């Protein structure tokens, strides 16, 4: 499986994502934001950072980049896409995922290790963001719950930003596009305290099988 990791002006986590993808599956390459060519790439990571300086809103400009046009086609073809933090914001702005990410409830940037729960398992990975409060209309949240699109939640008492219903990550209806506010790419090496992040990449790998 070959991963492509997008790189926008202002991205800052693309190298860690590249490393995480290589640990997870062995092959990965960077994709510059002006590049429309995703040929040979099986799965895409839209990484964290501050694409285009977060001007207007986080992800508002990045969604119009040539690379994101290619990502939309890639997603429509049922191939895996993982948006992390700013990447999650970009995917929401692009309409590839429902909802939006708002300023944290406490109006402060948070940086801490958080516990997530998904399908009965728990993961410990770091979160670092100022605009990570997941929001969607109540009817959309109900629909997400019913269709099983809430992919990750903060464990009880761990919600660092006031996200609705403790939602940390959501998937699209088909399940091939996943957005997550905490950073699995920073939790792939025992040296940094957790390798739970690898399971997020492996989850997307499963889409191809």
């Amino acid at each position, binding site marked *: 499986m070959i991963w492509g990791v997008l790189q926008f002006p202002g991205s800052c986590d693309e190298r860690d994502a590249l490393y995480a993808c290589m640990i997870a599956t062995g092959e990965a390459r960077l994709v510059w934001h002006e590049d429309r060519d995703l040929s040979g790439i099986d799965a895409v990571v839209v990484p964290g950072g501050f694409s285009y300086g977060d001007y207007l809103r986080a992800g*508002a400009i990045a969604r119009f980049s040539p690379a994101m046009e290619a990502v939309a086609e890639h997603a429509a073809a049922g191939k895996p896409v993982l948006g992390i933090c700013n990447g999650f914001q970009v995917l929401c702005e692009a309409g590839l995922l429902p909802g939006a990410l708002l300023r944290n409830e406490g109006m402060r940037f948070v940086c801490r290790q958080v516990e997530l729960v998904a399908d009965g398992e728990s993961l410990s990975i770091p979160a670092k963001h100022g605009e990570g409060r997941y929001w969607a209309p109540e009817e959309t949240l109900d629909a997400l719950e019913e269709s099983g699109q809430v992919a990750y939640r903060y464990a009880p008492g761990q919600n660092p930003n006031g996200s609705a219903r403790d939602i940390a990550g959501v998937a699209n209806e088909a399940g091939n596009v996943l957005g997550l506010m905490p950073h699995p790419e920073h939790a792939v090496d025992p040296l940094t305290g957790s390798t739970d992040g690898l399971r997020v990449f492996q989850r997307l790998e499963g889409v191809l099988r």
Partner: protein
Amino acid sequence: MVELEAEDPERLAELCEKLLANPLIEDYEIQTL
């Protein structure tokens, strides 16, 4: 507030819907000066 010169003011609403505002979480108002 965003100030801009537009050649075609008829398209300002479209510009707001697609870029300047996220209609899911933001309202917008257009004032012509």
